[in-house]
Structure formats: C-alpha cells, structure tokens
C-alpha cells in the first residue's frame, strides 16, 4: 500500500529531515534551497491572470506534472484540498513558500516528492516555481537535480522565453535563468559579536542577498540567515552557483573564528548563555515560537561546540521545526489558540529534552 502524500507532513518523525546533521560544515551550513522560476507561454502572468485563466493554468500544469514519473512518493496537491493547518505544515518544512501558503489566492497547488526533496509550486508569483531542498553544502548535486526536473517539465510545458532575456518572469529580478540559490547558515557567533552587519555589507557588495529564516520577506530569527544570489541574468547557472558557493567557505571560517574567539575569551559568558537557554527550554511552562527558535539557536551552538554532549544535533534541528505553530498543533492533534500553543510548545520541548537526560 503506497503511503499517502499526507503521511509525510502528518508525521512528526521526519520534520527535520531536510536539515544537515553530517558532512562538512553542517554545524554552520544548515540547508541549501535552489529554485527556478518559470511561466507557461500563452498565459498572462499572475498580475493579469483572471480566475478562469488561473484555473486553466492550474489544470494545464496538473495534467502534465502528474504524468511525470519522478518518484514513487510524488504527489500533486491542490491547496484548496488542504486544511489551513496542512498548508502551514508544508510551509514550516520549507516545501512551499510563505507567499503560496499565505499571501496569494486563487487556485494554487504543489507537486512534490519528499524522498527527492523537490517541489513544484503552481500559481506562485510565477506559474511555476521548481525547487530542491537539501541538507548542508551539496549545491552542485542539487542544481543538477533541479536542472533535470526543469528539462523534464520543459519537455511537457512550453515555457515563456525571450531570445534576448531568456526565461521571462513576473518580476524582472528573476528574469534570465530564474535561478535563486539560497543557503541557510547558522551564524550565532557573528550575531553575538555584532559582526553580522559586516556580513550584510560584504554580501551586498558581492550582489548577494541576506534574508530571514523563511526566505524573502521573513524575519531574521534565531541567528539563521539565507544567503542568495540577486543576479539572475547575464550569467550561466554554473557561474551563479559559483558566485554563491565561493563565499560560503569564507562565511563559515568567519563564524568559526569568532566562535573560537568567544570560547577562548568569554568562556564563562558563552557557557552561561548556552546552559541558560537549555535550562529555559528544559523547564519553561510557556513559550512562543520565536523564543523557542532563539533558545534552540543557542543550544544548537552548544551542541556544535561539544558543550551539550547528551544532545544530538538531529534532535535540535527537529525541535526547530516541531516548535513552530502548525507543528505544535500537529503534535497536539488539534487546533490551538496562541496561548494554548505556547503552553503545548513548552510542554513538548520539556518532554523531549527530558528524554535525553
């Protein structure tokens, strides 16, 4: 019996699967997401897509995407058929964007395979947003996988292209390749030391953007940052990838240097912060999701520095996802208001951390 597509996001076991727990630099490079923006030739873009045409785009794509044989667990889900909680679960796992989940209306859908870590959003800002998401620093393999997906969809769907500008997109910031590579980094030491501002400056000079935890338009929270390319036109996909990947080792070294410095010079302060965060997570009775992410960020640093040997990194990553609002409700098995969520979140975190002793 094939598993239902809902089994994935209805299960709490797999919540943090897409984050890195091994491989080089997994302590800092959490995850890599690469996406391509595409539109279907012959249809207006979203800004001028009336309800009937939006339905037509959706069914045009549904028919073609469903025919692709990508993975045994592939699924095509219309957002209209999902509860708002299910939609939020997909968002919290970075399977769909904030815009698709919350901001946009009309017929939207997602085609995804959990095993392949890929998803295709339908009627996002562009008709199609193809993305792959993988742990840590594996961008070359991910890009190859994404290009393969693009070629397979492109064989079924006529993309809107231009002889001079390449792939045409709703927003000209995506035109050309439609490629956005976003690497999520955990940079607590750079934030503590306030050197993060210099990271922003340096990134800006290299035409890279630094975004929040959930990508564009989301908050900086828990010392997690997404570094991504701003330019999409005039360079090959390899070159764009290289633009992002060449700065990663520098950022990783930078964060490591600062970690070493803080550890050497402010040992007690650092330990105090980490153990305090652990203590609050372990004993608090009420906690917001923002507080949870921020405390987990400190604990994550502690785990990476070997200060909390009893805690596996995998668990910390998992708790980062499971402490978000929709996942707290999934764990509770019912919808909860804000306050009940904060109570349930604190309960759950206490329980999980108690298990590790």
């Amino acid at each position: 019996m094939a598993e239902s597509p809902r089994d994935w996001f209805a299960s709490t076991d797999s919540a943090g699967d897409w984050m890195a727990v091994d491989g080089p630099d997994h302590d800092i490079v959490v995850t890599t997401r690469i996406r391509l923006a595409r539109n279907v030739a012959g249809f207006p873009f979203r800004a001028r897509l009336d309800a009937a045409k939006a339905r037509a785009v959706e069914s045009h794509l549904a028919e073609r995407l469903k025919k692709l044989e990508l993975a045994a667990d592939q699924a095509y889900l219309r957002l209209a058929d999902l509860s708002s909680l299910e939609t939020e679960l997909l968002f919290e796992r970075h399977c769909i964007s904030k815009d698709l989940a919350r901001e946009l209306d009309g017929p939207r859908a997602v085609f995804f395979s959990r095993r392949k870590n890929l998803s295709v959003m339908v009627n996002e800002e562009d008709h199609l947003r193809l993305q792959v998401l993988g742990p840590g620093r594996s961008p070359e393999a991910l890009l190859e996988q994404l290009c393969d997906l693009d070629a397979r969809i492109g064989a079924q769907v006529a993309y809107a292209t231009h002889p001079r500008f390449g792939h045409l997109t709703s927003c000209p910031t995506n035109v050309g390749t439609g490629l956005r590579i976003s690497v999520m980094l955990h940079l607590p030491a750079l934030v503590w030391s306030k050197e993060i501002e210099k990271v922003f400056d340096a990134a800006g000079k290299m035409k890279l953007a630094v975004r929040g935890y959930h990508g564009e338009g989301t908050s900086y929270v828990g010392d997690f940052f997404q570094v991504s390319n701003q330019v999409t036109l005039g360079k090959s996909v390899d070159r764009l990838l290289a633009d992002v990947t060449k700065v990663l080792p520098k950022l990783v070294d930078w964060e490591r240097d600062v970690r070493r410095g803080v550890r050497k010079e402010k040992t007690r302060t650092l330990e105090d912060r980490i153990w305090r965060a652990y203590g609050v997570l372990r004993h608090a009775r009420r906690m917001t999701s923002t507080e949870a992410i921020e405390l987990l960020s400190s604990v994550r640093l502690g785990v990476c520095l070997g200060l909390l040997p009893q805690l596996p990194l995998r668990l910390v990553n998992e708790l980062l996802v499971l402490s978000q609002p929709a996942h707290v409700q999934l764990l509770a098995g019912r919808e909860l208001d804000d306050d009940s969520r904060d109570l349930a979140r604190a309960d759950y975190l206490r329980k999980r951390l108690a298990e590790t002793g």
Partner: protein
Amino acid sequence: MTEFCQRCQTEAAKVHVTEIDKDGGKVLLHLCEGCAKGHGLPASTPPTVLAVFKELVDKASTVSRTRDRQCPECGITFAEFKAKGRFGCAHDYDAFLARVVPLLERVHGASEHLGPGDAVAAAAVPDPSATASGAAPAAPAPVLPPPARKSAADQAAQELKRLRRELVRVVKSEAYEEAARLRDRIQALEKDLAKGFEVDG
C-alpha cells in the same frame, strides 16, 4: 500578549537581541523595528527585493516622459508595473523594451541572457564523475555550445565607453534629462566595475 519595546514603550517589540555588555554580562533587548534600527541592528524584516527594486524602477523611469503606453497584449501600463513590480505578461518585456533594458542593467548588471532561452537550465551542469577513466561519453550536448563571450568585465568596460561618448553627445544637444539618465547608468556601471567584477575575477 504584546510585548512592548523597551526603548519607546509604545511600539510592539519585534526585534529580540541578546547582547554581551562590556563586563561580559548578558543583556536581553526587546525593541521595535524603529528603535532597533537606531540601535544599529537590522530591522527584523529585511528589505524585500521588491522594495529595492521599486527604487531602481523609479530611477530608471525618470527617463521618459512619453505618455504611458499599454502593453497591447495584457493592457498593463508601465506605471502599473512600477507600482507593483510585477509584469502582466510575457509581452511586456518587448512592449516596454526601452525602459526594461536600463532597468535590467541596473538590477543584474546585464541585459542579455547567456545562451538560448530554452537551454537555460540545461546549460551543462558539469558532471564531476565524467572525467573518470572509462566514463561513458557525456550525454548529447545541450542544444548549443556556449558562445565564445567576452568576460562580463570587458563587456561592461565597453558599455561604459559607449555611454560616455553618448553622454558627450546628449550634453551638446542639451538633452539634460537623457544626460542625467546616462550619468546614473555610468555611475552604476563604474560601481559594478569597481566592486563586482573584481570579485568575479
């Protein structure tokens, strides 16, 4: 449940920061976005591409005072595009070509895609395993080999020369609006050359 900013006590606290003070002690700050900015911290929400982009469009579109034309296909005007930062259809790129090109140059430092549009993503992601001995010949080359191109820096330098010549010409003819536009483009390009291309090597 709203937590108020510790500074102004009026706005909701949206930026939460832990700082280490001079003595190595921990200070927890809860600030609103305004006070956080004053404190030298990034606002909790980074500027969106759209916001940055709007600024660029505004600059680029002081160019033309011609009446706002509509795209014959979707009916959108350039003003509407400016307001939302989103085109209405694929034809807009041609319908507003004269404005689109400088805009793309500002945003991307280029106004031309490399290689044929259809082959974009397929454009050869090199397979590191393919160099191993006995490896099967690579799959059929994707569409066209990449054209021999000048480096981006060369292209930019050439474009810069062209723009400077153009600037001299329009100043002579007293077309100051056009001259201002050219000046902005030249400055942007010079900046790019100074920073971006140097990084690209």
